[in-house]
């Protein structure tokens, strides 16, 4: 009886959808898919096409006249090559620094801390992720400034603004992005393996080297995707603490805003895009993509 009442109350719309799960799925999927494919992937395609367009010398307007000059100069101009190399070195240094700092932290949280303190530490390392990116970079500008806190604490040995300051600031900004995947990686290491290793007489160093390191390596790779990719695309932190340092994203921004040359900016942005895709492909071999 109750079921009958329910069916009786069912309106025509509900009755129509109730028997058509595929229609429901289609309606659920269409808006987000349209947005992500048309607005997002579509834009990436437009970006790639724009790289082959030209700028009208008189009006500065972008005109759809095909040319390959921008792409060629991006890959042959010595200045761009130097900046690309510097950017990749910065991104790699940031990744290594973050991995070294995050490793013992994630290790401690996952394998040594008690469950209660672990929950506390997890929130504590996640929260700074949400503090404003701009403000964090600005905080380092204040820390590193002449006669600023670091100068006072180190007795005048602050690195000042420049390339080292950029690496430090970027490493600070992306540190939580390394800690969190690493924590998940340590958490997945079965404690029984660690105990077995200790029971069989392995020293702490041996257990870490032979049991833990190989098992958490994919997590380090997963974290490095973020630290590497985010460093490649940054121009704000460099502008704030980098002094005259130029990285790829600065050049892109400069071409767009100062030189008003959108096609060249688009061509330049293909470099970080390729670097990240190559990096993703390299990391896929380590199984990192499954642990994101």
């Amino acid at each position, binding site marked *: 009886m109750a079921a009958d009442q329910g069916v009786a109350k069912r309106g025509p719309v509900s009755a129509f959808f109730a028997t058509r799960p595929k229609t429901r799925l289609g309606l659920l999927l269409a*808006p987000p*898919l349209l947005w992500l494919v048309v607005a997002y992937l579509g*834009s990436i395609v437009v970006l790639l096409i724009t790289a082959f367009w030209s700028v009208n010398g008189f009006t500065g307007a972008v005109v759809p006249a095909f040319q390959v000059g921008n792409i060629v100069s991006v890959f042959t101009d010595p200045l761009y090559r130097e900046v690309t190399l510097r950017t990749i070195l910065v991104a790699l240094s940031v990744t290594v620094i973050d991995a070294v700092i995050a490793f013992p932290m994630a290790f401690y949280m996952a394998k040594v801390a008690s469950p209660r303190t672990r929950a506390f530490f997890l929130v504590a390392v996640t929260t700074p992720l949400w503090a404003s990116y701009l403000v964090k970079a600005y905080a380092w500008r204040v820390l590193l400034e002449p006669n600023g806190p670091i100068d006072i604490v180190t007795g005048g040995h602050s690195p000042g603004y420049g390339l080292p300051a950029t690496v430090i600031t970027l490493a600070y900004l992306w540190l939580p992005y390394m800690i969190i995947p690493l924590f998940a990686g340590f958490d997945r290491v079965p404690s029984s393996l660690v105990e077995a290793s200790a029971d069989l007489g392995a020293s*702490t160093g041996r257990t870490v080297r032979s049991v833990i390191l190989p098992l958490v390596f994919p997590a380090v790779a997963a974290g490095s995707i973020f630290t590497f990719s985010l460093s490649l*695309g940054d121009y704000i932190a460099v502008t704030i603490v980098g002094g005259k340092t130029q990285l790829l994203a600065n050049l892109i921004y400069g071409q767009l805003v100062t030189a008003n040359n959108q096609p060249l900016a688009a061509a330049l942005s293909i470099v970080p895009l390729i670097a990240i895709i190559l990096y993703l492909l390299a990391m896929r071999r380590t199984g990192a993509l499954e642990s994101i």
Partner: protein
Amino acid sequence: MGMEFSRGFRIFLRVCMWIGLAILYIPLILIVVNSFNQSKTFSFPPTGLTLQWWIAASHSQGALSALGTSVAAGVGATVVALLLGTMAAFAVQRYRFFGRQTISFLVVLPITFPGIVTGLALLASFTNILGPLGVGLGIGTVIIGHATFCIVIVFNNVQARLRRLGTSLEEASADLGGTLWQTFRYVTFPSIRGALVAGALLAFALSFDEIVVTTFTAGPEVQTLPIWIFGNLFRPNQAPVVNVVAAVLTIVAIVPVWLSQRIAGDSVTSRV
């Protein structure tokens, strides 16, 4: 825990943990303390504490109108992300279809690619495709840009909740004659409400402090709070007000994380 490791090693790890936390928090604390600093330029330790810069900031027209713009952009992006993220989460969690994994990947992509690529790509399509159609850069294009990378936050939260929820309650409702709408309204929605609120708070926080995509999609007229800060960062006489706005941004960005943790214990706050 961790008795398999030597005592010295455990102490070493604990020391590293606290040093790491200190590194993470000292700059943030510095920003908040600095906003109460009496002297106009940075002095360490502060010569005295004052509220005068907070009062000055509350009268700064530029900062206030930027705050309004940031809130409007954040609310707009959050609404779009809530709708699209929830729909995608339902599709992926409640249906089996070809290309399900691809949807999850597509949703994450906008935060995996560097902001400058996303920003420039959106700018290229806005100016080259929407521009000729008479649509200019403004708050609307900022909302489109922000929503694109906020979807993943709502998606992750709702998806995690739907997975834990299972389908038995919804099936029971359907078996008892509940219509699709009744099942959603009285069974599914109350169970995912916490995840929706958490996702909305976090999406708002993400939009509120975004600067790279904003720079490219805002056009010259629209100023959000981060853009205002960036524009005034290199002006020494604006420094005290910038310090206050920076402190506000820090607090406004952190509070939603704590709130979302309290509202939904399983809230996905990690971003990664």
